[in-house]
């Protein structure tokens, strides 16, 4: 890339700027917190099914909700969708989700209930 004066195949040397370092430290903290939270959510989901204390009618929607929270955390914190300049990336994955929902619903209906 001429505008950086760097040959893309040359090994990069040097350090990130102070600003980037601060940003990375903050990012790491957020990611560690959300990792802990994800472990927590997963454990809760397993416990709510493993123990008989929680009725099934409540446990199923509950674990699906936990799954959705965990996935949003993965996408936005681990996969950096929350960063600026990721508008198209967001559009693509959410378009996928938008098509995925009727796909799941119609297959469940056609195969599971109508059994055509």
């Amino acid at each position, binding site marked *: 890339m001429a505008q950086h004066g760097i040959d*893309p195949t040359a090994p990069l040397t040097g*350090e*990130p*700027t102070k600003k980037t370092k601060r940003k990375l430290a903050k990012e790491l903290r957020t990611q560690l917190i959300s990792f802990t939270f994800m472990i927590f959510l997963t454990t809760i989901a397993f416990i709510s099914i*493993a123990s008989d204390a929680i009725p099934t009618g409540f446990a199923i929607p509950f674990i699906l909700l936990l799954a959705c929270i965990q996935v949003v955390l993965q996408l936005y914190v681990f996969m950096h969708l929350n960063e600026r300049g990721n508008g198209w990336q967001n559009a693509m994955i959410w378009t996928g989700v938008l*098509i995925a929902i009727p796909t799941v619903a119609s297959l469940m209906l056609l195969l599971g209930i109508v059994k055509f």
Partner: protein
Amino acid sequence: MADQHVQTLPPNLEKATLEGKNKYLGFWLFLGGETILFASLFGTYLGLRGSLNGGPGPSDLFHLPLVFIMTMILLTSSLTSVFAIISMKKGNYKGLLTWMTVTVLLGAAFLGFEIYEFVEYVEHDLGFTTSAFGSAFYTLVGTHGAHVAFGIAWITTLIIRYRKSGLTLTNAPKFYVAVLYWHFIDVVWVFIFSVVYLMGIGG
């Protein structure tokens, strides 16, 4: 490159070149498509999971402790790949390779458990053709397992290919995109353990 010793790393290595930017964008398009692939497999599984044809059903087969261990392994491997990217952005190439290797090892452990699990189910008389549930289950979880296997192969290739090159603007997007793929595998697994295993045991 006389001024290289004063050079600072660009803040977003993976997007510093046009090629990197395009890779990053194109990869999200691919992930959108993958979402729909898995949605069709999930929909099929949910439609067919009650059709046992006299074979064993979810509650006869699944064991929560094994699935819990697998989930934790995959979740941890997601975190180690996050560490890899943080190392990369700090310019620590050795750290990047080390964390990537840890990620691959955790992925291999996950895959080992999954193979063990499938062998176990086949011994309990659930073959691919036993019932509609069997076919749907093996297709859904097997496709995920195939993604894990592909991810392992991909990252291993990158590690071997670039073991000596140092961090460059060419390989930074490649590592970054491979890590995105790895996170996506974890995203799919979250739904698999919830929809297939937990719902299979819970009702």
